[in-house]
């Protein structure tokens, strides 16, 4: 398949997944706020920190108020990682490869973008954002389902799945990080019902609460980390995402799993193996936040090597530079 097309499919899925996860970030915070004891102040700054766009935020907004943060993360067209920007980028990528995806996929991503774009000027969204963010999540799920059911499961689909799951691995780790940054009213609150409520909110935002209960029962932080980072069967856990992305990577190249023939396979294979042989105690000993930070950096390396391996074909002989233009 054309390198350019593969690149666009990969980013189409990453951007869609990213939009969905930004909706999840906001959702987790809205849920936590509902459960805070009355009188506590709402904490919105952490959301901006975990997306990694705090500098851009500070440039355009004064103060991490609820309104400002939701605007920045949802409707701000200057923020390349806002929901509307992600969906716009997803749609632009889809538009350049309309011949390679099913018309149903195009129609869904187009409808989804038009919905969010129209919502930007709708005052009711800010007044009650819950159902809107739920709509965004559902639209992304619908897109994923349509893709699963209408696209040829060929090379292009594997690029789709790889992009989607690498993005999800990164975002699940950041969702966990929300809990690290959201401060409890006091140190004495660690391990109290309030702490539990916040952990439950994290799980709920990853659509994981009930599945977690089936697996582990009561809310215990270490087991939540186990579930969202290391579980082999929960489709939003980091380990699951890495394994499935790795399967797609090998389906694309034909290299048997467990071996590598290019840097992408080397980096992703090594990362996946690390997760297969790690346990929660080691993560906690290192520090959850530090562990997740390291993961995010390694994922960037994987992404870079995928670009080098598949999308950036070197020109023949001559001096002409060939650059597909990187998404991000």
């Amino acid at each position, binding site marked *: *398949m*054309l390198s*350019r097309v593969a690149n666009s499919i990969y980013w189409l899925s990453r951007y869609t997944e990213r939009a969905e996860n930004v909706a999840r970030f906001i959702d987790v915070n809205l849920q936590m706020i509902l459960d805070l004891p009355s009188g506590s102040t709402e904490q919105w700054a952490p959301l901006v920190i975990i997306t990694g766009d705090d500098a851009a935020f500070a440039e355009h907004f004064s103060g991490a108020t609820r309104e400002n943060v939701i605007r920045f993360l949802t409707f701000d067209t200057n923020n390349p990682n806002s929901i509307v920007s992600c969906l716009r980028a997803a749609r632009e990528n889809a538009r*350049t490869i*309309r*011949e*390679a995806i099913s018309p149903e996929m195009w129609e869904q991503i187009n409808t989804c973008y038009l919905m969010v774009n129209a919502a930007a000027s709708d005052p009711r969204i800010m007044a009650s954002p819950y159902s809107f963010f739920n709509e965004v999540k559902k639209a992304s799920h619908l897109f994923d389902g349509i893709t699963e059911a209408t696209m040829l499961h060929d090379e292009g689909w594997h690029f789709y799945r790889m992009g989607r799951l690498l993005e999800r691995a990164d975002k699940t780790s950041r969702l966990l990080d929300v809990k690290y940054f959201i401060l409890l009213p006091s140190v004495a609150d660690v391990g109290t019902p309030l702490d539990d409520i916040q952990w439950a909110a994290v799980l709920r935002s990853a659509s994981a609460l009930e599945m977690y209960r089936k697996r582990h029962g009561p809310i215990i932080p270490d087991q939540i980390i186990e579930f969202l980072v290391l579980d082999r069967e929960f489709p939003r856990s980091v380990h699951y995402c890495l394994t499935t992305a790795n399967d797609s990577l090998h389906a*694309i190249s034909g290299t048997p799993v467990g071996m590598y023939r290019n840097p992408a396979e080397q980096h992703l294979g090594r990362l996946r193996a690390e997760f297969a042989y790690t346990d929660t105690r080691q993560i906690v000993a290192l520090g959850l936040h530090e562990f997740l930070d390291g993961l995010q950096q390694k994922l960037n390396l994987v992404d870079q090597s995928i670009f080098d391996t598949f999308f950036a*074909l070197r020109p*023949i002989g001559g001096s002409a530079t060939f650059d597909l233009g990187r998404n991000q």
Partner: protein
Amino acid sequence: MNFTSYDTAEFFDEMLLPDGCARSGARLLKERIESLPNGELLLRQEAAERLLLQSGITFNVYGDSAATEKIFPFDVIPRIVEASEWDWIEKGLKQRVCALNLFINDIYHEQKIVRDNVVPEYLIRSARSFREACVGLNPPQGIWCHITGTDLVRDRDGQIYVLEDNLRCPSGVSYVLENRRVMKRTFPQVFEASRVRPVDEYPSRLLFMLQSLFPAALESPKVAVLSPGMYNSAYFEHAFLAQQMGVDLVEGRDLVVVNGQVMMRTTKGFERVDVLYRRIDDDFLDPQVFRPDSLLGVPGLMDVYKRGRVALANAPGTGIADDKSIYAYVPKIIEYYLGEKIIIPNVPTYICAKAEDRSYVVSHLDELVVKAVNESGGYGMLVGPHCTQNERAEFARRIEDDPRNYIAQPTLGLSRAPVIVESQFAGRHVDLRPYILYGKDIYVLPGGLTRVALKKGSLVVNSSQGGGSKDTWVLLP
């Protein structure tokens, strides 16, 4: 809604007779529309527009940065062409395309038609669309214009004329197919009862024709659509056609010439391409041969083409046959190559390069339509009767400065068809662009794109100038 207050005025109306009765092919349609409950037609119109927006069937407007993406306005009342009239149109188009192809081939070889003094030498020599690089080329089976879109109009008296030929990269066929899909979804009952000839086979016909172009006996030649990219106004169509044919959509940057072959850059290395349906103008195809500053094309492409190792549709150089001053000679061209009288007449045309024509044109600008010979899309034209004295004076100056670049024609009273305007029916001028494929044989898609000038009184139907479209129903006999 009904047609009681609809006025056909002094124009030929495609649907109604001057007394308000429907033309015979449109009787059922009129009856069905009038029997719809109040407000229903408007709801259907809105549903159709919503469907178009959701499917992203849009085009880009140049020089409009804020809202570069618009839906091509669509009117739900179809335009009907009766079977017998269509037969005549189809014969006329086949004749015309066949003769124009022979003309192009002759021009790039012996130029017999020039030596026999049928087409003047200076017109060829001075034509900007003449491509020196194409002299002596022999495309497969001698066919140059594989895809043609010919614009037809009807004057007040009901006579149909060819207004212009488009033999480079005619666009619009995707709207024909999409308009039909939308009509079937919004008006299933009317559609079912009307015995309309289908248009759906166009993509398979196109693919079949493209595959037949590859000279070597390949089992299944690799076909791709070559587009300038998503910022081109017809990008939707390029992607649509590639999708409907199930072939790759490529851009210049995806292609490279390696070892005398055109190759695509894929995730697994290079893969050969055999046939390119190119939607890039000649000028931009190959910077080594045409414009050196082009970033859209593929360096070395023409060389591979000359060696017969890749096929291009349309062949480069076809623009010589749709130069608007050559157009004036098409009746003679048909007679010269085929020994036949032209079937669908031309509109009388004044060639400003001729002194006597020029002086007539300049002194009659208030009655004429003036067009630049190489422009399309409604750009570079003057509709004399609708212009101010100053605009006419300006055009007169341009004509005197560069007479070869202009032709003029009498202003026709283009036929009209009813469209929905603010919950009423109103007559608007229309044209028709049928699409013709030329491969092993000549195929004419039944119908084509009916374009509507949505501005009241306007004669310019181009989408870039506020035009819309309608579904075109060619009835079964």
